[in-house]
Protein backbone atom coordinates (compact mmCIF):
# COMPACT_ATOMS: atom_id res chain seq x y z
CA UNK A 1 0.00 0.00 0.00
CA UNK A 2 1.25 3.50 -0.81
CA UNK A 3 2.41 5.87 1.91
CA UNK A 4 -0.54 7.29 3.82
CA UNK A 5 -1.61 10.90 3.21
CA UNK A 6 -2.82 11.42 6.73
CA UNK A 7 -1.69 9.64 9.86
CA UNK A 8 -3.38 10.22 13.17
CA UNK A 9 -1.21 8.81 15.89
CA UNK A 10 -2.55 8.13 19.40
CA UNK A 11 -4.46 11.44 19.35
CA UNK A 12 -5.96 12.71 22.59
CA UNK A 13 -8.23 15.77 22.51
CA UNK A 14 -9.56 17.10 25.79
CA UNK A 15 -11.85 19.88 26.92
CA UNK A 16 -10.93 21.69 30.11
CA UNK A 17 -14.12 22.60 31.95
CA UNK A 18 -14.97 23.71 35.46
CA UNK A 19 -15.65 20.09 36.35
CA UNK A 20 -12.20 19.08 35.19
CA UNK A 21 -10.67 17.75 32.02
CA UNK A 22 -12.86 15.70 29.73
CA UNK A 23 -11.27 13.62 26.99
CA UNK A 24 -13.43 13.60 23.89
CA UNK A 25 -10.84 11.68 21.87
CA UNK A 26 -8.85 9.10 23.80
CA UNK A 27 -5.98 7.80 21.74
CA UNK A 28 -7.16 7.54 18.14
CA UNK A 29 -4.80 6.04 15.59
CA UNK A 30 -5.87 6.11 11.96
CA UNK A 31 -4.41 6.35 8.48
CA UNK A 32 -5.92 7.67 5.29
CA UNK A 33 -4.34 6.56 2.02
CA UNK A 34 -4.42 8.39 -1.32
CA UNK A 35 -7.67 7.93 -3.19
CA UNK A 36 -9.42 5.85 -0.55
CA UNK A 37 -12.73 6.64 1.07
CA UNK A 38 -12.73 6.04 4.79
CA UNK A 39 -15.91 6.11 6.82
CA UNK A 40 -15.74 7.17 10.45
CA UNK A 41 -18.94 6.11 12.18
CA UNK A 42 -20.23 6.37 15.71
CA UNK A 43 -22.91 7.95 17.82
CA UNK A 44 -23.06 11.65 18.67
CA UNK A 45 -20.36 12.30 21.23
CA UNK A 46 -18.19 9.38 20.12
CA UNK A 47 -15.43 11.82 19.18
CA UNK A 48 -15.58 11.31 15.43
CA UNK A 49 -16.18 14.95 14.57
CA UNK A 50 -13.72 16.22 17.18
CA UNK A 51 -11.00 13.97 15.72
CA UNK A 52 -11.50 15.52 12.30
CA UNK A 53 -11.76 19.03 13.72
CA UNK A 54 -8.36 18.42 15.33
CA UNK A 55 -6.99 17.53 11.89
CA UNK A 56 -8.35 20.82 10.57
CA UNK A 57 -7.20 22.76 13.63
CA UNK A 58 -10.72 23.95 14.40
CA UNK A 59 -11.56 22.20 17.66
CA UNK A 60 -14.08 24.32 19.58
CA UNK A 61 -12.67 26.22 22.55
CA UNK A 62 -11.87 25.11 25.30
CA UNK A 63 -10.88 21.90 23.52
CA UNK A 64 -7.26 21.25 22.62
CA UNK A 65 -5.02 18.45 21.45
CA UNK A 66 -3.51 17.02 24.59
CA UNK A 67 -1.12 14.47 23.14
CA UNK A 68 -0.46 12.40 20.07
CA UNK A 69 0.35 13.58 16.59
CA UNK A 70 -1.29 14.29 13.26
CA UNK A 71 0.96 13.94 10.22
CA UNK A 72 0.37 14.96 6.62
CA UNK A 73 2.63 13.06 4.23
CA UNK A 74 4.89 12.34 7.19
CA UNK A 75 5.03 15.94 8.45
CA UNK A 76 3.52 16.86 11.78
CA UNK A 77 0.63 19.34 11.59
CA UNK A 78 0.90 20.04 15.30
CA UNK A 79 4.59 21.00 15.21
CA UNK A 80 4.21 24.13 13.07
CA UNK A 81 1.00 26.11 13.11
CA UNK A 82 2.14 28.18 10.14
CA UNK A 83 2.86 25.19 7.92
CA UNK A 84 -0.38 23.54 8.99
CA UNK A 85 -2.28 26.71 8.03
CA UNK A 86 -0.76 26.52 4.56
CA UNK A 87 -1.94 22.93 4.15
CA UNK A 88 -5.45 23.48 5.44
CA UNK A 89 -7.79 24.67 2.76
CA UNK A 90 -5.26 23.57 0.12
CA UNK A 91 -4.33 19.90 0.57
CA UNK A 92 -6.74 18.95 3.34
CA UNK A 93 -10.18 20.47 3.19
CA UNK A 94 -13.37 20.02 5.10
CA UNK A 95 -17.07 20.19 4.28
CA UNK A 96 -19.21 20.68 7.35
CA UNK A 97 -22.56 19.36 8.41
CA UNK A 98 -24.59 22.53 8.45
CA UNK A 99 -24.46 24.14 5.05
CA UNK A 100 -26.99 26.77 6.10
CA UNK A 101 -24.60 28.38 8.59
CA UNK A 102 -21.25 27.45 7.06
CA UNK A 103 -20.94 30.43 4.74
CA UNK A 104 -20.29 33.97 5.94
CA UNK A 105 -23.70 35.64 5.43
CA UNK A 106 -22.25 39.03 4.44
CA UNK A 107 -19.94 38.07 1.59
CA UNK A 108 -20.94 37.03 -1.95
CA UNK A 109 -20.23 33.36 -2.64
CA UNK A 110 -17.78 34.25 -5.39
CA UNK A 111 -15.72 36.26 -2.92
CA UNK A 112 -15.72 33.42 -0.40
CA UNK A 113 -14.45 30.92 -2.95
CA UNK A 114 -12.01 33.53 -4.27
CA UNK A 115 -10.46 33.84 -0.80
CA UNK A 116 -9.21 30.27 -1.03
CA UNK A 117 -7.72 30.88 -4.47
CA UNK A 118 -6.00 34.08 -3.33
CA UNK A 119 -4.69 32.45 -0.17
CA UNK A 120 -3.42 29.18 -1.58
CA UNK A 121 -2.94 29.68 -5.29
CA UNK A 122 -2.21 33.41 -5.53
CA UNK A 123 -5.04 33.70 -8.06
CA UNK A 124 -6.84 37.03 -8.40
CA UNK A 125 -8.88 38.96 -10.92
CA UNK A 126 -10.10 37.36 -14.15
CA UNK A 127 -8.08 34.14 -13.64
CA UNK A 128 -9.68 33.63 -10.23
CA UNK A 129 -13.11 34.40 -11.67
CA UNK A 130 -12.66 31.82 -14.39
CA UNK A 131 -11.62 29.20 -11.84
CA UNK A 132 -14.57 30.05 -9.56
CA UNK A 133 -16.99 29.59 -12.47
CA UNK A 134 -15.33 26.30 -13.36
CA UNK A 135 -15.72 25.10 -9.75
CA UNK A 136 -19.36 26.15 -9.51
CA UNK A 137 -20.11 24.34 -12.76
CA UNK A 138 -18.24 21.29 -11.49
CA UNK A 139 -20.55 21.04 -8.48
CA UNK A 140 -23.63 21.73 -10.56
CA UNK A 141 -24.63 25.29 -9.77
CA UNK A 142 -26.71 26.38 -12.76
CA UNK A 143 -26.18 29.84 -14.24
CA UNK A 144 -23.06 30.37 -12.14
CA UNK A 145 -21.77 33.47 -13.90
CA UNK A 146 -24.87 35.43 -12.94
CA UNK A 147 -24.79 34.22 -9.35
CA UNK A 148 -21.19 34.96 -8.35
CA UNK A 149 -22.32 38.05 -6.48
CA UNK A 150 -25.24 36.37 -4.75
CA UNK A 151 -25.18 36.16 -0.99
CA UNK A 152 -25.48 32.78 0.75
CA UNK A 153 -29.09 33.39 1.84
CA UNK A 154 -30.11 33.55 -1.78
CA UNK A 155 -29.36 29.81 -2.16
CA UNK A 156 -31.15 26.71 -0.87
CA UNK A 157 -29.50 24.33 1.62
CA UNK A 158 -28.53 21.85 -1.08
CA UNK A 159 -27.07 24.60 -3.24
CA UNK A 160 -25.11 25.94 -0.30
CA UNK A 161 -23.63 22.52 0.35
CA UNK A 162 -22.61 22.40 -3.33
CA UNK A 163 -20.98 25.82 -2.90
CA UNK A 164 -19.18 24.52 0.21
CA UNK A 165 -17.88 21.60 -1.83
CA UNK A 166 -16.79 23.94 -4.64
CA UNK A 167 -14.97 26.09 -2.10
CA UNK A 168 -13.30 23.01 -0.62
CA UNK A 169 -12.12 21.86 -4.04
CA UNK A 170 -10.82 25.29 -5.08
CA UNK A 171 -7.13 24.61 -4.44
CA UNK A 172 -7.07 21.00 -5.73
CA UNK A 173 -6.95 19.15 -2.42
CA UNK A 174 -5.83 15.55 -1.96
CA UNK A 175 -8.09 14.85 1.01
CA UNK A 176 -11.66 15.93 1.61
CA UNK A 177 -13.07 15.51 5.10
CA UNK A 178 -16.86 15.49 4.96
CA UNK A 179 -18.46 15.82 8.39
CA UNK A 180 -22.03 14.54 8.05
CA UNK A 181 -22.35 16.43 4.76
CA UNK A 182 -25.94 15.36 4.14
CA UNK A 183 -27.46 15.33 7.63
CA UNK A 184 -29.02 18.78 7.44
CA UNK A 185 -30.49 18.26 3.97
CA UNK A 186 -33.74 16.87 2.55
CA UNK A 187 -33.60 13.22 1.52
CA UNK A 188 -33.70 13.91 -2.22
CA UNK A 189 -31.00 16.53 -1.87
CA UNK A 190 -28.94 14.11 0.25
CA UNK A 191 -28.87 11.65 -2.63
CA UNK A 192 -27.72 14.39 -5.02
CA UNK A 193 -24.88 15.42 -2.72
CA UNK A 194 -23.78 11.79 -2.29
CA UNK A 195 -23.78 11.32 -6.06
CA UNK A 196 -21.76 14.50 -6.41
CA UNK A 197 -19.19 13.28 -3.87
CA UNK A 198 -18.86 9.93 -5.66
CA UNK A 199 -18.49 11.65 -9.01
CA UNK A 200 -15.86 14.07 -7.71
CA UNK A 201 -13.92 11.32 -5.97
CA UNK A 202 -13.76 9.26 -9.15
CA UNK A 203 -12.99 12.24 -11.36
CA UNK A 204 -10.42 13.99 -9.16
CA UNK A 205 -8.93 10.97 -7.37
CA UNK A 206 -9.75 12.51 -4.00
CA UNK A 207 -9.29 10.70 -0.75
CA UNK A 208 -12.39 11.21 1.38
CA UNK A 209 -12.96 10.84 5.09
CA UNK A 210 -16.69 10.59 5.61
CA UNK A 211 -17.78 11.26 9.17
CA UNK A 212 -21.31 9.98 9.63
CA UNK A 213 -23.71 7.93 11.65
CA UNK A 214 -25.47 6.80 8.51
CA UNK A 215 -24.40 3.22 7.84
CA UNK A 216 -26.23 3.22 4.53
CA UNK A 217 -24.06 6.08 3.34
CA UNK A 218 -20.97 4.20 4.50
CA UNK A 219 -21.96 1.10 2.56
CA UNK A 220 -22.55 3.19 -0.54
CA UNK A 221 -19.40 5.31 -0.47
CA UNK A 222 -16.63 3.85 1.63
CA UNK A 223 -13.75 1.46 1.11
CA UNK A 224 -12.84 1.19 4.75
CA UNK A 225 -14.63 1.94 7.99
CA UNK A 226 -13.48 2.99 11.44
CA UNK A 227 -16.08 2.62 14.20
CA UNK A 228 -15.72 4.98 17.15
CA UNK A 229 -17.15 4.65 20.62
CA UNK A 230 -16.53 6.95 23.60
CA UNK A 231 -13.46 8.59 22.08
CA UNK A 232 -11.78 5.43 20.83
CA UNK A 233 -11.71 3.51 17.61
CA UNK A 234 -13.21 0.14 18.49
CA UNK A 235 -13.02 -1.48 15.09
CA UNK A 236 -11.39 -0.85 11.73
CA UNK A 237 -12.15 -3.02 8.73
CA UNK A 238 -12.79 -2.88 5.03
CA UNK A 239 -16.41 -2.16 4.33
CA UNK A 240 -17.27 -5.70 3.08
CA UNK A 241 -15.85 -7.48 6.11
CA UNK A 242 -17.40 -5.01 8.50
CA UNK A 243 -20.91 -5.43 7.18
CA UNK A 244 -20.54 -9.17 6.65
CA UNK A 245 -18.90 -9.96 9.95
CA UNK A 246 -18.73 -7.18 12.53
CA UNK A 247 -16.23 -8.16 15.19
CA UNK A 248 -16.88 -5.62 17.94
CA UNK A 249 -20.16 -6.14 19.82
CA UNK A 250 -20.88 -2.42 19.41
CA UNK A 251 -20.52 -2.62 15.62
CA UNK A 252 -22.71 -5.70 15.60
CA UNK A 253 -25.30 -3.83 17.66
CA UNK A 254 -25.21 -0.83 15.28
CA UNK A 255 -25.76 -3.09 12.30
CA UNK A 256 -28.62 -4.92 13.98
CA UNK A 257 -30.21 -1.52 14.73
CA UNK A 258 -30.17 -0.62 11.03
CA UNK A 259 -33.12 -2.03 9.10
CA UNK A 260 -32.59 -3.35 5.61
CA UNK A 261 -35.12 -2.47 2.93
CA UNK A 262 -37.46 -5.36 2.26
CA UNK A 263 -36.66 -6.87 5.60
CA UNK A 264 -38.39 -4.51 8.00
CA UNK A 265 -38.77 -6.10 11.40
CA UNK A 266 -41.74 -5.36 13.67
CA UNK A 267 -39.44 -3.71 16.13
CA UNK A 268 -35.99 -2.34 15.48
CA UNK A 269 -33.18 -3.72 17.56
CA UNK A 270 -31.56 -1.20 19.83
CA UNK A 271 -28.39 -1.11 21.84
CA UNK A 272 -29.46 -1.17 25.48
CA UNK A 273 -28.48 1.76 27.70
CA UNK A 274 -26.98 5.05 26.58
CA UNK A 275 -23.48 6.24 25.73
CA UNK A 276 -21.35 6.80 28.83
CA UNK A 277 -20.77 10.24 30.29
CA UNK A 278 -17.33 11.24 28.99
CA UNK A 279 -16.47 12.76 32.37
CA UNK A 280 -17.28 9.50 34.12
CA UNK A 281 -16.20 6.60 31.93
CA UNK A 282 -16.27 3.07 33.30
CA UNK A 283 -12.88 1.49 33.92
CA UNK A 284 -11.69 -0.82 31.18
CA UNK A 285 -13.78 -1.16 28.05
CA UNK A 286 -16.13 1.84 27.78
CA UNK A 287 -18.81 -0.30 26.14
CA UNK A 288 -18.87 -3.07 28.73
CA UNK A 289 -21.91 -1.81 30.65
CA UNK A 290 -24.03 -2.06 27.50
CA UNK A 291 -22.32 -5.10 26.06
CA UNK A 292 -24.06 -8.48 25.90
CA UNK A 293 -20.70 -10.26 25.76
CA UNK A 294 -19.01 -8.47 28.66
CA UNK A 295 -17.59 -10.33 31.62
CA UNK A 296 -15.06 -9.74 34.40
CA UNK A 297 -12.14 -9.49 31.93
CA UNK A 298 -13.62 -6.32 30.44
CA UNK A 299 -12.79 -4.27 33.52
CA UNK A 300 -9.28 -4.22 32.09
CA UNK A 301 -8.75 -2.11 28.99
CA UNK A 302 -8.63 -4.44 25.95
CA UNK A 303 -5.75 -4.15 23.46
CA UNK A 304 -6.26 -3.40 19.76
CA UNK A 305 -6.00 -6.74 18.01
CA UNK A 306 -4.17 -7.18 14.70
CA UNK A 307 -3.44 -3.49 14.19
CA UNK A 308 -1.35 -4.34 11.09
CA UNK A 309 -3.66 -6.56 9.11
CA UNK A 310 -6.12 -3.82 8.18
CA UNK A 311 -8.74 -5.48 10.33
CA UNK A 312 -8.55 -4.70 14.00
CA UNK A 313 -10.87 -4.71 16.95
CA UNK A 314 -10.67 -3.34 20.46
CA UNK A 315 -12.35 -6.12 22.41
CA UNK A 316 -11.61 -9.12 24.67
CA UNK A 317 -14.53 -11.09 23.28
CA UNK A 318 -15.06 -10.22 19.63
CA UNK A 319 -18.08 -11.66 17.88
CA UNK A 320 -17.24 -14.95 16.21
CA UNK A 321 -17.25 -14.86 12.43
CA UNK A 322 -20.64 -16.07 11.15
CA UNK A 323 -20.72 -19.80 10.52
CA UNK A 324 -21.23 -20.42 6.87
CA UNK A 325 -23.73 -23.19 6.61
CA UNK A 326 -22.35 -26.19 4.79
CA UNK A 327 -24.10 -29.45 4.23
CA UNK A 328 -23.19 -31.62 7.18
CA UNK A 329 -20.87 -34.45 6.58
CA UNK A 330 -22.78 -37.56 7.13
CA UNK A 331 -21.57 -39.78 9.88
CA UNK A 332 -22.72 -43.24 9.59
Amino acid at each position, binding site marked *: MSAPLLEIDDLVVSFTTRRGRIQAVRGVTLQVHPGETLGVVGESGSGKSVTMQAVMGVVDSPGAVESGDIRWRGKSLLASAVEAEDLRGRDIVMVFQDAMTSLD*PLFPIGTQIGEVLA*RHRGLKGPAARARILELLELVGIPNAAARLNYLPHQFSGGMRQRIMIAMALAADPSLLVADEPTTALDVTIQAQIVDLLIELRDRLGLAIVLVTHDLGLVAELCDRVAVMYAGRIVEVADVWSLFAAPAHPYTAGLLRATPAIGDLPERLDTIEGSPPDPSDLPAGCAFRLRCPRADATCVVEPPMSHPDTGRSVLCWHPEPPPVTTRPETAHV
Partner: protein
Amino acid sequence: MADFILRRLLHGVVVVFGVMTIVFFVTRIIGDPVQVMLPVEATEAQRDLLRGQLGLDRPILEQFLQFAGDTLTFNFGDSLWQRRPAMEIVLQRLPMTALLTAVGIGAAILLSIPLGIIAALRPDGIVDRTTVVASLAGLSMPQFWLGLLLIILFGVKLGWLPTSGARSPAHIVLPAITLALPSLARLAMVVRTAMIDELNRQYIKVVRAKGLKRIRVVGVHALRNASVPILTLSGWEIIGALAGNVVVVESIFAWPGLGLTVIQSIERQDLILLQAVVFTVAVMAVCINIALDIAHRAIDPRVSA
Protein backbone atom coordinates in the same frame (compact mmCIF):
# COMPACT_ATOMS: atom_id res chain seq x y z
CA MET B 1 -31.21 54.35 -1.99
CA ALA B 2 -32.19 57.97 -2.74
CA ASP B 3 -35.77 56.97 -2.11
CA PHE B 4 -34.76 55.49 1.23
CA ILE B 5 -32.85 58.62 2.31
CA LEU B 6 -35.75 60.85 1.28
CA ARG B 7 -38.19 58.80 3.36
CA ARG B 8 -35.87 58.90 6.36
CA LEU B 9 -35.49 62.68 5.97
CA LEU B 10 -39.25 63.20 5.96
CA HIS B 11 -39.48 60.98 9.00
CA GLY B 12 -36.75 63.11 10.61
CA VAL B 13 -38.68 66.31 9.98
CA VAL B 14 -41.63 64.85 11.86
CA VAL B 15 -39.37 63.81 14.76
CA VAL B 16 -37.74 67.24 15.02
CA PHE B 17 -41.11 68.94 14.94
CA GLY B 18 -42.38 66.64 17.68
CA VAL B 19 -39.37 67.43 19.84
CA MET B 20 -39.87 71.14 19.29
CA THR B 21 -43.55 70.92 20.28
CA ILE B 22 -42.65 69.22 23.55
CA VAL B 23 -39.91 71.75 24.27
CA PHE B 24 -42.25 74.64 23.57
CA PHE B 25 -44.89 73.55 26.06
CA VAL B 26 -42.46 72.36 28.72
CA THR B 27 -40.53 75.64 28.73
CA ARG B 28 -43.78 77.63 28.99
CA ILE B 29 -44.70 75.59 32.04
CA ILE B 30 -41.47 75.73 34.02
CA GLY B 31 -41.11 79.45 34.52
CA ASP B 32 -41.60 83.06 33.58
CA PRO B 33 -38.60 84.61 31.81
CA VAL B 34 -39.71 88.10 32.75
CA GLN B 35 -39.12 87.30 36.43
CA VAL B 36 -35.47 86.60 35.67
CA MET B 37 -34.84 89.28 33.11
CA LEU B 38 -35.96 92.21 35.19
CA PRO B 39 -34.58 93.23 38.60
CA VAL B 40 -36.59 92.26 41.68
CA GLU B 41 -37.75 95.82 42.28
CA ALA B 42 -39.37 96.18 38.81
CA THR B 43 -43.03 97.15 38.92
CA GLU B 44 -45.88 94.99 37.57
CA ALA B 45 -46.41 97.55 34.81
CA GLN B 46 -42.81 97.22 33.70
CA ARG B 47 -43.15 93.44 33.71
CA ASP B 48 -46.32 93.58 31.61
CA LEU B 49 -44.61 95.87 29.15
CA LEU B 50 -41.77 93.40 28.65
CA ARG B 51 -44.23 90.50 28.34
CA GLY B 52 -45.99 92.40 25.60
CA GLN B 53 -42.70 93.06 23.79
CA LEU B 54 -41.77 89.38 23.94
CA GLY B 55 -45.27 88.27 22.90
CA LEU B 56 -45.68 86.29 26.10
CA ASP B 57 -49.01 87.88 26.90
CA ARG B 58 -50.81 86.33 23.96
CA PRO B 59 -52.81 83.06 24.26
CA ILE B 60 -50.50 80.05 24.36
CA LEU B 61 -52.05 78.48 21.26
CA GLU B 62 -51.41 81.64 19.29
CA GLN B 63 -47.83 81.68 20.57
CA PHE B 64 -47.47 78.05 19.50
CA LEU B 65 -48.72 78.66 15.97
CA GLN B 66 -46.33 81.57 15.68
CA PHE B 67 -43.52 79.39 17.03
CA ALA B 68 -44.36 76.49 14.68
CA GLY B 69 -44.28 78.79 11.70
CA ASP B 70 -40.99 80.31 12.82
CA THR B 71 -39.44 76.88 13.36
CA LEU B 72 -40.47 75.69 9.91
CA THR B 73 -38.79 78.74 8.42
CA PHE B 74 -35.69 78.36 10.65
CA ASN B 75 -36.45 81.68 12.27
CA PHE B 76 -35.85 81.26 15.98
CA GLY B 77 -35.84 84.90 16.99
CA ASP B 78 -33.43 86.78 19.23
CA SER B 79 -32.01 85.38 22.43
CA LEU B 80 -33.75 87.06 25.37
CA TRP B 81 -30.47 87.12 27.24
CA GLN B 82 -27.95 88.25 24.64
CA ARG B 83 -30.35 90.22 22.41
CA ARG B 84 -29.00 88.77 19.18
CA PRO B 85 -30.23 85.98 16.89
CA ALA B 86 -30.35 82.75 18.89
CA MET B 87 -29.17 80.65 15.95
CA GLU B 88 -26.10 82.86 15.66
CA ILE B 89 -25.11 81.97 19.23
CA VAL B 90 -25.79 78.28 18.62
CA LEU B 91 -23.71 78.17 15.45
CA GLN B 92 -20.92 79.98 17.24
CA ARG B 93 -20.88 77.43 20.08
CA LEU B 94 -21.58 74.32 18.01
CA PRO B 95 -18.03 73.77 16.68
CA MET B 96 -16.65 73.51 20.23
CA THR B 97 -19.16 70.82 21.15
CA ALA B 98 -18.62 69.03 17.86
CA LEU B 99 -14.87 69.06 18.52
CA LEU B 100 -15.23 67.75 22.07
CA THR B 101 -17.63 64.99 20.97
CA ALA B 102 -15.50 64.02 18.00
CA VAL B 103 -12.35 63.75 20.10
CA GLY B 104 -13.99 62.07 23.11
CA ILE B 105 -16.40 59.64 21.46
CA GLY B 106 -14.04 59.16 18.51
CA ALA B 107 -11.30 58.04 20.90
CA ALA B 108 -13.77 55.81 22.73
CA ILE B 109 -14.81 54.08 19.49
CA LEU B 110 -11.26 53.70 18.20
CA LEU B 111 -10.01 52.27 21.50
CA SER B 112 -12.98 50.02 22.19
CA ILE B 113 -12.63 48.02 18.98
CA PRO B 114 -9.09 46.64 19.53
CA LEU B 115 -9.76 46.28 23.26
CA GLY B 116 -13.01 44.38 22.74
CA ILE B 117 -11.44 42.18 20.06
CA ILE B 118 -8.43 41.25 22.18
CA ALA B 119 -10.75 40.47 25.09
CA ALA B 120 -12.95 38.34 22.81
CA LEU B 121 -10.01 36.36 21.41
CA ARG B 122 -9.26 34.94 24.83
CA PRO B 123 -12.42 34.94 26.89
CA ASP B 124 -11.49 34.75 30.56
CA GLY B 125 -7.90 35.71 29.75
CA ILE B 126 -6.11 38.57 31.50
CA VAL B 127 -7.06 41.26 28.97
CA ASP B 128 -10.65 40.01 29.00
CA ARG B 129 -11.03 40.04 32.76
CA THR B 130 -9.34 43.44 33.04
CA THR B 131 -11.60 44.88 30.33
CA VAL B 132 -14.74 43.55 31.96
CA VAL B 133 -13.85 44.82 35.43
CA ALA B 134 -12.62 48.19 34.15
CA SER B 135 -15.76 48.53 32.02
CA LEU B 136 -18.01 47.88 34.98
CA ALA B 137 -16.09 50.48 36.95
CA GLY B 138 -16.34 52.93 34.04
CA LEU B 139 -20.07 52.35 33.77
CA SER B 140 -20.64 52.82 37.47
CA MET B 141 -18.88 56.18 37.76
CA PRO B 142 -21.10 59.24 37.30
CA GLN B 143 -19.51 61.72 34.92
CA PHE B 144 -19.71 64.72 37.26
CA TRP B 145 -17.75 62.75 39.86
CA LEU B 146 -15.26 61.33 37.36
CA GLY B 147 -14.61 64.84 36.03
CA LEU B 148 -13.91 66.18 39.50
CA LEU B 149 -11.56 63.28 40.27
CA LEU B 150 -9.61 63.98 37.09
CA ILE B 151 -9.38 67.67 38.00
CA ILE B 152 -8.08 66.83 41.48
CA LEU B 153 -5.53 64.37 40.13
CA PHE B 154 -4.23 65.94 36.91
CA GLY B 155 -5.09 69.58 37.57
CA VAL B 156 -4.52 70.13 41.26
CA LYS B 157 -2.16 67.39 42.54
CA LEU B 158 0.02 66.82 39.46
CA GLY B 159 -0.61 70.14 37.74
CA TRP B 160 -0.18 68.56 34.31
CA LEU B 161 -3.32 69.68 32.55
CA PRO B 162 -5.56 72.76 32.49
CA THR B 163 -9.02 72.22 33.94
CA SER B 164 -11.10 75.08 32.64
CA GLY B 165 -11.78 76.79 29.34
CA ALA B 166 -10.60 76.04 25.81
CA ARG B 167 -7.59 78.17 25.17
CA SER B 168 -5.10 75.51 24.04
CA PRO B 169 -5.14 71.96 22.67
CA ALA B 170 -4.24 70.70 26.16
CA HIS B 171 -7.54 72.07 27.45
CA ILE B 172 -9.50 69.39 25.60
CA VAL B 173 -7.76 66.44 27.28
CA LEU B 174 -9.63 66.24 30.57
CA PRO B 175 -13.13 66.99 29.24
CA ALA B 176 -12.59 64.52 26.39
CA ILE B 177 -11.49 61.79 28.80
CA THR B 178 -14.46 62.47 31.05
CA LEU B 179 -16.81 62.29 28.09
CA ALA B 180 -15.10 59.21 26.63
CA LEU B 181 -14.71 56.84 29.59
CA PRO B 182 -18.31 55.70 30.11
CA SER B 183 -18.76 55.38 26.33
CA LEU B 184 -15.52 53.44 26.06
CA ALA B 185 -16.71 51.08 28.77
CA ARG B 186 -20.07 50.42 27.09
CA LEU B 187 -18.53 50.11 23.63
CA ALA B 188 -15.76 47.74 24.75
CA MET B 189 -18.36 45.46 26.36
CA VAL B 190 -20.49 45.44 23.21
CA VAL B 191 -17.50 44.84 20.91
CA ARG B 192 -16.40 41.99 23.17
CA THR B 193 -19.82 40.33 23.31
CA ALA B 194 -20.49 40.76 19.60
CA MET B 195 -17.06 39.37 18.69
CA ILE B 196 -17.40 36.38 21.03
CA ASP B 197 -20.80 35.65 19.46
CA GLU B 198 -19.41 35.80 15.95
CA LEU B 199 -16.19 33.90 16.67
CA ASN B 200 -18.26 30.97 17.93
CA ARG B 201 -20.31 30.74 14.76
CA GLN B 202 -19.99 27.94 12.27
CA TYR B 203 -18.83 30.12 9.37
CA ILE B 204 -15.77 31.15 11.40
CA LYS B 205 -14.81 27.48 11.76
CA VAL B 206 -15.20 27.19 8.00
CA VAL B 207 -13.01 30.18 7.16
CA ARG B 208 -10.39 28.90 9.60
CA ALA B 209 -10.50 25.50 7.93
CA LYS B 210 -9.88 27.32 4.63
CA GLY B 211 -6.45 28.16 6.03
CA LEU B 212 -7.07 31.92 6.01
CA LYS B 213 -4.74 34.03 8.12
CA ARG B 214 -6.04 34.75 11.60
CA ILE B 215 -6.04 38.49 10.97
CA ARG B 216 -8.41 37.97 8.05
CA VAL B 217 -10.64 35.57 9.97
CA VAL B 218 -11.00 38.00 12.88
CA GLY B 219 -10.56 41.38 11.23
CA VAL B 220 -12.61 40.80 8.08
CA HIS B 221 -15.13 38.01 8.64
CA ALA B 222 -15.90 38.22 12.36
CA LEU B 223 -15.58 42.00 12.67
CA ARG B 224 -17.85 42.77 9.74
CA ASN B 225 -20.51 40.47 11.15
CA ALA B 226 -20.09 41.98 14.61
CA SER B 227 -20.11 45.55 13.39
CA VAL B 228 -23.87 46.13 13.21
CA PRO B 229 -24.35 46.27 17.02
CA ILE B 230 -21.03 48.13 17.38
CA LEU B 231 -22.14 50.71 14.83
CA THR B 232 -25.56 51.13 16.41
CA LEU B 233 -24.09 51.74 19.85
CA SER B 234 -21.44 54.11 18.45
CA GLY B 235 -24.22 56.21 16.96
CA TRP B 236 -26.07 56.18 20.24
CA GLU B 237 -22.97 57.26 22.11
CA ILE B 238 -22.55 60.26 19.79
CA ILE B 239 -26.20 61.22 20.15
CA GLY B 240 -26.08 60.64 23.91
CA ALA B 241 -23.01 62.86 24.20
CA LEU B 242 -24.52 65.67 22.12
CA ALA B 243 -27.93 65.48 23.75
CA GLY B 244 -26.90 65.17 27.36
CA ASN B 245 -23.42 64.26 28.47
CA VAL B 246 -21.80 67.39 27.07
CA VAL B 247 -24.01 69.44 29.38
CA VAL B 248 -22.37 67.86 32.42
CA VAL B 249 -18.86 67.74 31.01
CA GLU B 250 -18.88 71.27 29.61
CA SER B 251 -20.19 72.61 32.91
CA ILE B 252 -17.42 70.93 34.88
CA PHE B 253 -14.63 72.12 32.61
CA ALA B 254 -16.20 75.44 31.49
CA TRP B 255 -15.94 74.24 27.91
CA PRO B 256 -17.62 76.90 25.77
CA GLY B 257 -19.93 74.67 23.77
CA LEU B 258 -23.62 73.98 23.39
CA GLY B 259 -23.90 72.13 26.70
CA LEU B 260 -22.79 75.17 28.60
CA THR B 261 -25.16 77.27 26.50
CA VAL B 262 -28.03 75.02 27.56
CA ILE B 263 -27.24 75.53 31.24
CA GLN B 264 -26.88 79.28 30.76
CA SER B 265 -30.11 79.60 28.81
CA ILE B 266 -32.01 77.61 31.45
CA GLU B 267 -30.58 79.72 34.27
CA ARG B 268 -31.66 82.88 32.46
CA GLN B 269 -35.01 81.45 31.35
CA ASP B 270 -33.94 82.19 27.78
CA LEU B 271 -36.65 80.18 26.02
CA ILE B 272 -35.66 81.32 22.56
CA LEU B 273 -32.04 80.27 22.91
CA LEU B 274 -33.02 76.97 24.52
CA GLN B 275 -35.36 76.21 21.64
CA ALA B 276 -32.62 76.93 19.12
CA VAL B 277 -30.20 74.60 20.93
CA VAL B 278 -32.73 71.78 21.20
CA PHE B 279 -33.66 72.17 17.55
CA THR B 280 -30.01 71.91 16.52
CA VAL B 281 -29.37 68.83 18.66
CA ALA B 282 -32.54 67.15 17.39
CA VAL B 283 -31.53 67.78 13.78
CA MET B 284 -28.07 66.32 14.48
CA ALA B 285 -29.59 63.25 16.13
CA VAL B 286 -31.82 62.66 13.12
CA CYS B 287 -28.89 63.07 10.71
CA ILE B 288 -26.73 60.64 12.72
CA ASN B 289 -29.53 58.09 12.69
CA ILE B 290 -29.84 58.38 8.93
CA ALA B 291 -26.08 57.98 8.57
CA LEU B 292 -26.26 54.87 10.78
CA ASP B 293 -28.96 53.36 8.60
CA ILE B 294 -26.92 53.99 5.48
CA ALA B 295 -23.82 52.44 7.07
CA HIS B 296 -25.87 49.47 8.27
CA ARG B 297 -27.02 48.80 4.72
CA ALA B 298 -23.45 49.05 3.47
CA ILE B 299 -22.26 46.47 6.03
CA ASP B 300 -25.13 44.04 5.65
CA PRO B 301 -26.34 43.85 2.07
CA ARG B 302 -29.24 41.60 3.18
CA VAL B 303 -30.96 44.66 4.64
CA SER B 304 -33.22 46.16 2.01
CA ALA B 305 -35.86 48.84 2.08
